[in-house]
């Protein structure tokens, strides 16, 4: 095992390389630029291709094209670039092309604050393109080591589900320095629970079967299989059609290949949730680190508090919220995004509240004060996702 002290950006780079990524196309953007920089140095050493695209839209299109030609590919960005993925993300979803997308979230809206962490793309990562009729896989790391592991996982899921997978990080995860362990052998990789699948080629002539199965090889060009990949509604052979029956089959496959195999995707961390918590703190990404500390500190002080960290964000894990409790989501935004989903999923009779801020994390003390208020039935100044007056 190799132990280094490094950033989340480096962890994502090494995770991608271990997973077999051989193409990175990106456009410089704070705070994801270091991923591109690391890739520009590391990829050629591994025989891979680094490209600086003319914009993020082109970057993901280039990755899509490389993947369509058989290369594992990745791009990385932050909010203003992420929104430009709408077009190629939809293309990859619909054409069922594996590709990995990293978003290091910063503070928005739009260009916002470049060098501070935000969590404004929770819903955008679910609905990154138009038209509906699809499901999305989104994974959210909360540490440097986790960024490595989940990048590897993203490539693994992308290949098996033949779809784009988003790693939804934040500026603190990607810029933060921590210990990073990487495997130096396949045995070590297995020990660490890392898995990868090699790219396979769909032999045709059925490229888009009416099936929710995973592990169907994706369409790959260049093998004279009669491959057809496009943004049009495909027949099973990939021919364009205006027929709603084919469209229904297509949408059903896009949705159910993911929903029917959630066991491979769903992942969460919980703290003291089986120990009769009254208040459960909920967070993903970096804020979940504070939540963990708050639960531990709160329990030490005798507070009945628990914590939930969804690691896979989409498809949303409703089952995590089946216990009747007082939930408090902790988010790096002022408008409350995760809270809306928890409100929808929480067991009947639950209360769901929101604690949010941009650019910096809450302190453990702040969270525990809020827990005490909620336990005492004191109304929070903030009602759900409505933020308090400035």
């Amino acid at each position, binding site marked *: 095992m190799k132990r280094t002290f490094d950033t989340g950006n480096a962890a994502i780079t090494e995770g991608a390389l271990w997973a077999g990524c051989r193409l990175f196309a990106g456009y410089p953007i704070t705070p994801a630029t270091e991923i591109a920089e690391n890739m520009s140095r590391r990829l050629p050493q591994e025989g891979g291709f680094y490209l600086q695209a003319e914009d993020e839209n082109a*970057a993901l299109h280039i990755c899509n094209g490389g993947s369509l030609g058989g290369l594992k*590919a990745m791009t990385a960005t932050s909010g203003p670039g992420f929104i430009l993925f709408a077009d190629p993300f939809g293309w990859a979803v619909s054409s069922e092309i594996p590709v990995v997308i990293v978003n290091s979230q910063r503070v928005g809206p739009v260009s916002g604050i470049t060098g501070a962490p935000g969590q404004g793309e929770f819903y955008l990562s679910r609905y990154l393109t138009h038209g509906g009729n699809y499901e999305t896989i989104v994974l959210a790391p909360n540490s440097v080591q986790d960024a490595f592991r989940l990048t590897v996982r993203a490539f693994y899921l992308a290949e098996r589900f033949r779809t784009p997978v988003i790693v939804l990080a934040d500026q603190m995860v990607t810029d933060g320095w921590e210990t990073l362990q990487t495997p130096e052998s396949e045995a070590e990789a297995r020990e660490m629970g890392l898995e990868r699948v090699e790219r396979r080629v769909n032999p045709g002539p059925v490229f888009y079967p009416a099936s929710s199965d995973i592990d169907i090889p994706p369409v790959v060009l260049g*093998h004279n299989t009669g491959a057809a990949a496009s943004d049009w509604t495909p027949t099973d052979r990939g021919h*364009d059609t205006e027929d709603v029956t084919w469209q229904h089959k297509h949408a059903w496959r896009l949705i159910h290949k993911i929903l029917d195999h959630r066991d491979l995707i769903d992942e969460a961390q919980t703290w003291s949730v089986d120990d009769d918590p009254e208040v459960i703190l909920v967070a993903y990404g970096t804020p979940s680190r504070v939540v963990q500390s708050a639960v531990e500190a709160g329990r030490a002080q005798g507070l009945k508090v628990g914590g939930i960290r969804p690691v896979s964000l989409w498809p949303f894990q409703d089952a995590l919220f089946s216990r009747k409790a007082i939930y408090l989501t902790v988010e790096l935004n002022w408008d409350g995004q995760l809270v809306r989903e928890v409100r929808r999923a929480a067991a009947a009779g639950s209360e769901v509240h929101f604690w949010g801020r941009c650019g910096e994390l809450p302190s453990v003390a702040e969270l525990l004060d809020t827990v005490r208020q909620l336990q005492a039935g004191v109304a929070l100044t903030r009602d759900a996702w409505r933020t308090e007056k400035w």
Partner: protein
Amino acid sequence: MSDDLLEKYVRPEKNPGTACKGCGLRLAHRRVLEAIDQLGLGQGDVVWGTGIGCSGRQTFVTWKGDTFAGTHGRVYALATGVRLALPPEKRLILTVGDGDAFTIGLHHLLHAARRNVDMTVVVFDNLGYQSTGGQYGVTTPVGSRTDSSPYGAWEPNWTEGGHDVLRLVREAGATFVARHTVLQGEAAVTSLKRAIENRGFSLVQLVYPCVTHFGVQALGTRDLGRIYDWFRDQTAEGVAAGGDKRFATGVVHDGVGKRPEFTEALRGFVARVQNGEVQHG
């Protein structure tokens, strides 16, 4: 094109295809197949991509071999990635429209030309946005009536008034650039062959008549004979020509072999890094 050629290259379910009766796109498509045939290329030698609009949609998945279609204007970026992954000897041909190449996709097109990525972009130019019912575009002759220029198109376009979008493509770094009308069969096929053989970025603009919209709206007829007469009348031989003619035709630039091809250069660079011949800072 004989039926043999159609049988050889075109998927049976896409023959005769979905273009309107009398559409010049069929002839344009035929020119590309003729060039492929004359070069002795088979189904497995070519990967075929398309854009959006009549020109892209009607030629999508017609090729019996491997095919793909990009989102509107982005197929040049998509094809850049495809090119990186494909073996260099595979020919990569894109058939796209004037809107796809010169409007929504111009940015990506110019960057593919800048890099000299090995692909042949065939712009099937139907002089405007025809699949949406006939609106003016950047190659619509100034003065033309269309559904969105009921008083006659007055915006400067990319091909008249001293502008030529193909000069822009050449300046960006393309290594073969030409313009023909579909009626100039021999010259068009000669250029297409040169373009396909070029191990670099080639663009051939092939102007063809849309009978349903451009013919009816701008020329007042869908009679193919009369439309072709207008085309002949508006065609000037020689790219510097033009004058009062709409279509200055010929080879705009032949720089085949004069610039390194991008993916080959990138492979060479990667090999040098792996061999330790270049070090990072």
